[in-house]
């Protein structure tokens, strides 16, 4: 299967080609070449997936990893060396399919969305660079290769937003994202070094084989400040994952990163880069499970809190991309929780499978939501909900596909999100009741805010261009009626829509499991009925509150006649509900949480930057420019050092 190198090589060559020669081509040509390159890449990825899953992947009853390519890149000591290679196993092949599919859709979509923007060629070159780094990350054979590509993913996403976009807010957002994730990666690096120092290897295969015996043995009896050293190492590695996957409190960069172009958000902030952290934990899952189970418990708690926290904030947002951003944080936290509550082996490893399953389905419907949002923004030239409404008349395809994605994320059968979310809930149900109930509430909130979004965009009130809305793209483009996007944008929506409907039907446990042995899952109807119930409550509430702009029970009463009393009653409930939600919940719970996030969590990070600046200003007196003073410091410093050494 040596040809699998093409999956990585193609985007790299595309990057070099477009980066070096792109400026000499017409923008459209560069875009089409980039898209064709990605098509080739996706085709190869599909072939690899087919061959792996149906021809060579199984030995007996077990999925065995295949390493078609591996060479030693650098040798540190006799046994410690860094390799570069390609590792194919169920989760990496699954990720290849996800990444190439979404990336291809985004390439195609951008042909329409980015049409006429300056730097179009550069944009395509950077998209290829990003795809290259992300693909390199998932096929890494060792944790070090993963780290290198991990950083490269950070760089390329920084450049994709920063170098392409000239909006100052986008530039500072990309810088923030870069620095926050770099900070998290610091933990990752320390973790890797500790791990490799004691085990003497970087290889995933060595680290995970025989129930991670190597890690367990080499860390046995070693501890640091009351915790076992293995716990430290793995918790630090998780810190890197938490940064990329936007877990609380390292999530602050993701909402701001929404300043970038929407297709980029679909690719990076929905389907690929942000799930890298989940992938990392999944990749090292046996190590976590056998060497430091308490870290998994911590991951479960962090994930649960993040899921709830982000879902509550999503309710209060009015910028549609920010709603999606918080929704992404919440859903990724779901995946993390699933890993955290998972056990190892067979059906006990349900959480592991569920996490990967949700990663798989979420990638499609979240990308679809972002691309749909992009299509809407393209039509009305605003990100704000109150500039929208009633768009279903004008944008049939967008409206229908968006609805599909909303149903999928809300967990309504038979859409894909239902199956994966159900497995996560089932895994939590059998392991930790408190986590299960929190996730259950989050499921309801998710359904609510997604449909709030859907109704506010496509229904609510007849569309009228909002005179007060500042239009970011300017040029008064919003006087004309919004219209459906061109086919290059509509086609990806339809394809992703199909994926969002059907991808849940894949018998995922046959392919992905914690111990690589296929097992059978069944829908746990106790859990499923509860999750459907809460989803319907959420959707229903959103319908009542947001389907129409002004709730006029009289109209409803006239139409319904006999049901008048009921309607009246509903109106009454409505008001109570309105009061409870808008006044009590919204003002006293959601708003403070959102405020806390904005000012305290974010503020702390800004505060660190501010303190650094301040410290920098306050020591400038040292640099006086007087050479006598310099000489004095020189001599005094030397004497001070001598004194310290002699008398301490």
């Amino acid at each position, binding site marked *: 299967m040596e040809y699998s190198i093409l999956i990585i090589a193609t985007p790299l060559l595309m990057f070099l080609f477009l980066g070096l020669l792109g400026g000499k081509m017409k923008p459209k040509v560069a875009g089409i070449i980039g898209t064709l390159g990605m098509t080739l890449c996706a085709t190869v990825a599909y072939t690899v997936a087919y061959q792996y899953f149906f021809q060579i992947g199984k030995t007996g009853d077990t999925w065995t990893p295949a390493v078609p390519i591996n060479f030693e890149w650098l040798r540190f000591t006799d046994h410690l060396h860094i390799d570069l290679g390609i590792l194919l196993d169920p989760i990496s092949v699954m990720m290849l399919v996800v990444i190439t599919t979404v990336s291809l859709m985004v390439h195609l979509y951008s042909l329409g969305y980015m049409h006429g923007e300056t730097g179009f060629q550069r944009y395509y070159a950077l998209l290829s660079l990003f795809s290259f780094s992300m693909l390199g990350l998932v096929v890494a054979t060792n944790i070090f290769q993963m780290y290198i590509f991990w950083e490269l993913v950070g760089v390329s996403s920084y450049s994709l937003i920063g170098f392409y976009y000239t909006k100052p807010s986008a530039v500072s957002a990309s810088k923030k994202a870069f620095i926050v994730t770099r900070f998290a990666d610091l933990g990752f690096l320390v973790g890797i070094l500790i791990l490799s120092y004691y085990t003497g290897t970087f290889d995933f295969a060595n680290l995970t084989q025989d129930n991670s015996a190597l890690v367990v043995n080499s860390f046995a009896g070693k501890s640091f400040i009351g915790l076992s050293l293995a716990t430290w190492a793995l918790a630090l590695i998780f810190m890197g994952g938490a940064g990329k996957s936007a877990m609380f409190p390292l999530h602050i960069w993701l909402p701001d990163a929404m300043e970038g172009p929407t297709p980029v958000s679909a690719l990076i902030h929905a389907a690929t880069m942000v799930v890298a952290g989940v992938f990392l934990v999944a990749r090292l899952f046996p190590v976590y499970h056998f060497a430091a189970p308490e870290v998994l418990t911590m991951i479960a708690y962090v994930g649960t809190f993040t899921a709830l926290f982000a879902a509550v904030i999503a309710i209060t947002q009015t910028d549609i991309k920010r709603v999606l951003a918080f929704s992404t944080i919440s859903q990724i936290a779901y995946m993390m929780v699933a890993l955290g509550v998972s056990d190892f082996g067979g059906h006990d490893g349900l959480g592991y499978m569920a996490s990967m399953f949700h990663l798989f389905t979420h990638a499609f419907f979240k990308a679809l939501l972002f691309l749909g949002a992009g299509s809407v923004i393209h039509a009305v030239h605003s990100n704000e909900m109150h500039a929208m409404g009633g768009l279903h008349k004008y944008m049939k395809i967008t409206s229908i596909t968006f609805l599909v994605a909303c149903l999928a994320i809300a967990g309504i059968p038979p859409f894909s999100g239902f199956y994966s979310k159900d497995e996560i809930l089932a895994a939590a149900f059998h392991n930790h009741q408190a986590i299960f109930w929190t996730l259950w509430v989050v499921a309801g909130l998710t359904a609510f805010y997604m449909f709030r979004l859907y109704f506010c965009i496509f229904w609510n009130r007849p569309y009228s261009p909002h005179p007060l809305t500042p239009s970011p793209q300017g040029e008064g483009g919003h006087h004309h009626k919004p219209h459906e996007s061109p086919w290059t944008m509509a086609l990806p929506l339809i394809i992703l829509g199909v994926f969002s409907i059907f991808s849940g039907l894949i018998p995922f446990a046959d392919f992905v499991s914690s111990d690589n042995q296929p097992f059978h899952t069944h829908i746990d109807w106790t859990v499923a009925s509860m999750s459907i119930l809460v989803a319907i409550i959420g959707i229903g509430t959103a319908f009542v509150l947001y389907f129409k702009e002004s709730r006029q029970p009289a109209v409803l009463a006239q139409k319904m006649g006999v049901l008048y009393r009921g309607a009246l009653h509903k109106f009454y409930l409505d008001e109570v509900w309105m009061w409870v939600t808008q006044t009590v919940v919204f003002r006293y719970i959601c708003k403070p949480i959102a405020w806390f996030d904005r000012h305290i969590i974010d503020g702390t990070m800004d505060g660190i930057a501010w303190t650094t600046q301040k410290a920098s200003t306050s020591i400038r007196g040292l640099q006086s420019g007087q050479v006598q003073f310099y000489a004095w410091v*020189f001599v005094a410093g*030397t004497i001070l050092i001598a004194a310290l050494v002699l008398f301490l």
Partner: protein
Amino acid sequence: MDFSNFLYMGQEIGLLILFVILFLYDTFCTANGRKYFQTIAVSGFAVLTLYGFLPQICNQSFLVGEVFGGMYVSSDMTILMKNILNMATLIVFLQSRQWLQTGETLHRQGEFYTITLSTLLGMYLMVSAGNFMMLYVGMETASLPLACLTAFNKYKEQSAEAGVKYILISALSSGVMLFGLSFLYGGLGSMYFADMAAGMQLSTLTVLGFVFFLGGLGFKLSLVPFHLWTADVYEGAPTSVTAYLSVVSKGAAAFALLFVLYQVFGKVLGVWEPILWWLAAITITLGNLFAIRQTDIKRFFAFSSISQAGYIILGIISASDQGMAALVFYVLVYLFSNLAAFGVIAAVEQQSNGDTRIAAFNGLYKSNPKLATVMTLAVFSLGGIPIFAGFFSKLYIFFSLGAQGQWILFFIAALNTVISLFYYLLIVKAMWFQESAENVSSFKTDTSNRISLVLCTAGIIAVGLMSFIYEYIQTISFGV
């Protein structure tokens, strides 16, 4: 006297010959002949640089060993270090052409090359010293001409001021160093590295001697608190000289310190390790904090280079073969990254009539995309961003720290790379996103500078990825 000893000094002798040729040419050539001065100097020096790579090119090894009774040491490592210094000097020569050929420096450009070569000779001796007297002579040979170079634009007040500051602090530091050396001699009864190492014992005298000696080299490396001169001198000196100071002079001092600490003070690791530990931590942090608020790009790189020097000495702290390999590799990468930045600065400075504010770089991407790209790669590499060479060099340093269990220092250093990102990205931001009315107009960089930038870019991209370079350095490294 056994003249065959001179055979061990191939590189020094080559340098001396080149120096004499250039000196004579400068003295006797006509005004017309002076036009070709740079070509002759650069090609001569390129030959010398290639000569240093002879073992790699045609498998013919140099003579290695101790000669002149242990005064002078030549080994694969010293040859490699000199090669690194040579490459950096060659790049500086390429970058200085445009500056030298305009204005009043035109008729005395020969001085620049000859003086630079004589400082380089001093640095060779520092690296190859087997005796503290040799080290001291090397350091003085390197320092005094450097003061001339900093004041090379003698009609510019800033340049003259930089020269004065440099010579004063330099004199002070050699005084302090000599003072320390006299203590060491008193305590150990020898100036030879090997003898001193053999008779090394801890006493107040040797500890004091060591600290004062460290002050002298700390000046060259601009470690905190011996760093205060750096910003003023870097700002005032001609850009090419600043580049030379920040890379070649610093590299030579780091190599010398490495040898002395490993070979002479290896046994008393416990004394100097904590000192360097604190110096490194403070140097990295303070350099970063100062860099944040700079508005002049040369001052900015002065503080950035202070912080980088802190990373360089982290390799010494590891006191292992891994640490030595990491340090040498770090300097190699630092050479390409920092000189790429200075090449761009030199080009922009020529164009904007000596404007070295960071604001002068606003909108550089619009007018000169290639220069902006090179600068971006350079600061990415300096900031340790993958997959540029700087990422790997920092990584090897961190590895060597981790292997010694220096986790706290490792964490401080790694945290500082995140802080440094904060200010390196300011430059990127200025070039790519900031607009300004007084943008530098589009211009063509002169050919020789362009060659230097191509070399640097190739270095930034390739040196990290070509793992055999690090592996080679590792094979010739040794620990305490």
